[in-house]
């Protein structure tokens, strides 16, 4: 009130000046006149809003009321005015008496007198709204920046107008490199053309939706690499026209997880083992294809039902015991048990059980794999049975051989012995034929005895364990040769035995081999002069092949394969005696060593017998 009095005092009513004074007093805008000294000279009542008395306002330079931060700008504006530039809507803050600030918007025209005529409007409220809007904008910006999804806004011309930080990170571009660019920059080339159509379709019927629609989408990074994405589209209407906000998620991890899950699921489905999930209470939760095959129940017959239908009565307690052990944290690995199929048949299975726990470690279920080992078990049982049968047969053969050795020879001894007794005691009562027949009886008995011995050797070869060691074959051959020399001294056979022959085999059986081969060579050279027998080694398919060669009667190669059969003889008994068992024995010994035996010969031109001793030598 006092202010307005002051104003009225300087303006005579009734005059045009006085009318102006009315406006001065009425104005809701602040009006003031300041002097060259920087102090207000006059202020209108609107200045009351600041809370000062007029005297207070006029007593100090107006800059004192200006917010310290706004002083430099205010000074600059005053400077401008002084130079003749008008002030329009210059804003600064004035301090109120209560210490608060009001935003004032100033309009002023320069005056040559050096005085300032200015009008200020209180724009504090407008300012507040702007500040609030700016703050809201800033918050929104921060939210957009902080979004875990990439966010890209594209205008109707497919030009990128906004990019958030996550989008920068996803694609490897800074936003400066993206804003203003076509969105296709972020697509793999193969998708770019069709993308135009997709955008057109979307804009023709814009609605919020996912983008993929059954297709796999990929983004293209600045470095050219691609990554799978999921994109949500939101149409927004802006003053500039229809825009689209695309929200982009990198789904590489999810894809990898899905693939891993798919792979695992395939493994479970295709496994040869039954893989079964169940709750702790024994309710089946999963049942794979092999479970269907092994147990005969379909998944829909089992899932949700009790697993105990698989347990034969004798194994009823097993499941509870297993669960108890799993609860205690024990693992149950590979135990063999019996389960019952849907058709009632019991099968042998090998089962492994593991616990399924939630993230806090609590037991929530059980996973078990079961393998059908019925076949295996059957084979095992058959194998054991076959082995027992073979062993029994072997024992029987052994006692049979033992009896043969003893009991078959005794009568032969009588036949021979008493024939000889007859020849000795009753020679005078027998004529030449009679004596000849008795000699035949004796020869037959002795041949029979030899046959028995050879058969026993052959059977021993089959029965005895093979004890392989490094054997000096040259020494074996020399031993046999010495024995032959003793039995028939003065034969004058030239024998050449290669030194240092070594083989890997059973020394006793190999001695039998040389007895037979050298014995044969000795025998079949008996009808010629200049007999020669050679023992040596050659190479056959990279393996050493030992041979015994003679220049005796030889044989017809037509019959080469018959040589090694039992009782097979290529010579008549009157030419060369023999039982026809020797080479069969040799072959059996060589075969037992994993080797091969064969012969080459020509009638009248000698024979060569070769043998190898199996694969073991290759390592030497």
């Amino acid at each position, binding site marked *: 009130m006092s202010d307005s009095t002051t104003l009225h005092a300087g303006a005579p009513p009734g005059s045009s000046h006085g009318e102006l004074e009315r406006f001065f007093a009425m104005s809701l805008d602040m009006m003031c006149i300041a002097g060259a000294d920087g102090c207000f000279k006059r202020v209108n009542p609107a200045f009351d809003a600041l809370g000062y008395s007029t005297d207070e306002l006029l007593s100090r330079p107006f800059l004192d009321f200006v917010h310290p931060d706004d002083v430099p700008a205010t000074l600059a504006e005053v400077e401008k005015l002084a130079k003749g530039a008008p002030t329009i809507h210059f804003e600064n803050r004035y301090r109120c008496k209560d210490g608060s600030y009001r935003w004032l918007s100033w309009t002023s025209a320069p005056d040559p007198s050096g005085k300032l005529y200015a009008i200020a409007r209180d724009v504090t409220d407008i300012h507040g709204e702007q500040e609030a809007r700016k703050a809201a904008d800033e918050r929104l910006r921060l939210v957009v920046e902080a979004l875990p999804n990439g966010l890209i806004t594209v205008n109707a011309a497919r030009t990128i107008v906004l990019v958030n930080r996550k989008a920068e990170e996803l694609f490897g571009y800074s936003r400066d490199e993206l804003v203003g660019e076509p969105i296709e920059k972020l697509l793999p080339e193969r998708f770019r053309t069709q993308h135009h159509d997709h955008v057109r379709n979307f804009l023709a019927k814009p609605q919020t939706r996912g983008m993929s629609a059954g297709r796999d989408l990929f983004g293209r990074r600045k470095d050219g690499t691609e990554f799978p994405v999921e994109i949500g589209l939101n149409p927004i209407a802006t003053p500039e026209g229809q825009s689209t906000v695309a929200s982009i998620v990198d789904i590489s991890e999810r894809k990898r997880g899905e693939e891993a899950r798919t792979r695992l699921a395939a493994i479970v489905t295709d496994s040869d083992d039954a893989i079964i999930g169940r709750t702790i209470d024994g309710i089946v939760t999963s049942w794979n294809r092999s479970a269907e095959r092994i147990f005969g129940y379909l998944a829909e017959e089992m899932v949700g039902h009790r697993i105990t239908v698989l347990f034969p009565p004798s194994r009823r307690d097993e499941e509870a015991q297993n669960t108890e052990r799993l609860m205690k944290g024990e693992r149950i690995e590979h135990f063999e048990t019996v389960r019952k199929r849907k058709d009632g048949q019991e099968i042998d299975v090998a089962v492994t059980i593991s616990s399924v726990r939630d993230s806090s470690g609590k037991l929530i279920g059980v996973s078990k794999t079961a393998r059908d080992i019925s076949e295996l078990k059957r084979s095992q049982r058959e194998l054991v049975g076959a082995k027992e049968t073979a062993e029994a047969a072997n024992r029987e053969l052994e006692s049979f051989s033992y009896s043969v*050795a*003893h009991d078959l*020879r005794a009568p032969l*001894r009588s036949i*021979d*012995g008493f024939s000889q007794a007859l020849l000795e005691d009753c020679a005078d009562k027998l004529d030449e034929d009679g004596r000849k027949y008795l000699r035949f009886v*004796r020869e037959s008995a*002795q041949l029979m*005895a030899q046959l028995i011995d050879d058969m026993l050797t052959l059977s021993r070869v089959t029965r005895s364990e093979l004890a392989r060691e490094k054997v000096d074959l040259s020494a074996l051959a020399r031993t046999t040769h010495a024995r032959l020399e003793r039995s028939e001294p003065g034969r004058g056979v030239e024998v050449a035995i290669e030194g240092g022959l070594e083989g890997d085999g059973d020394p006793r059986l190999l001695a039998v081999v040389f007895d037979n081969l050298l014995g044969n060579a000795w025998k079949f050279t008996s009808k010629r002069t200049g007999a020669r027998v050679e023992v040596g080694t050659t190479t056959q398919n990279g393996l050493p092949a030992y041979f015994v060669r003679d220049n005796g009667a030889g044989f017809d190669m037509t019959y080469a394969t018959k040589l090694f059969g039992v009782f097979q003889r290529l010579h008549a008994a009157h030419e060369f005696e023999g039982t026809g068992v020797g080479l069969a024995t040799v072959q059996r010994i060589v075969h037992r060593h994993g080797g091969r035996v064969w012969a080459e010969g020509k009638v009248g031109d000698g024979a060569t017998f070769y043998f190898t001793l199996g694969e073991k030598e290759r390592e030497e």
Partner: protein
Amino acid sequence: MNTAHNDRVILLVEDNPKDEELTLRALKKSNILNPVVVARDGVDALDYLFARGAHAGRPPSALPQVILLDLKLPKLDGLDVLRTLRLDERTKLLPVVILTSSVEEQDLVRGYSLGANSYVRKPVDFVQFSEAVRQLGLYWLVMNEVAPPGGRP
């Protein structure tokens, strides 16, 4: 030639009468004139040696010069006879020659393990058989010096 020892008995343990006949013939052909006592089974052989059963009246200190022992015998087989002999103080040093049909390795090993002094296979060829018996007689009845009866060291 063997007059010095022809009073000592040869104990032939043999169940086959024909083999017995042949053995006796071979001994005779070899001029071995010692008395031969024949036991037909293992029990009979032990009874003779220990002067019991059918042989109860025999002076037990008179032991044979050598025993020709077959392996396959009724009642008690040759190896059992041998085992029993070797466990008894009176007979543990008595010369025992196993004279049998077979040379099954298991018999050879067990025979020698139980303390046989020799192991001879009876050849089917009687000429060879006679030669074997001749050499046996020569060795065990003439050449060999027997340990004192009772086996005192």
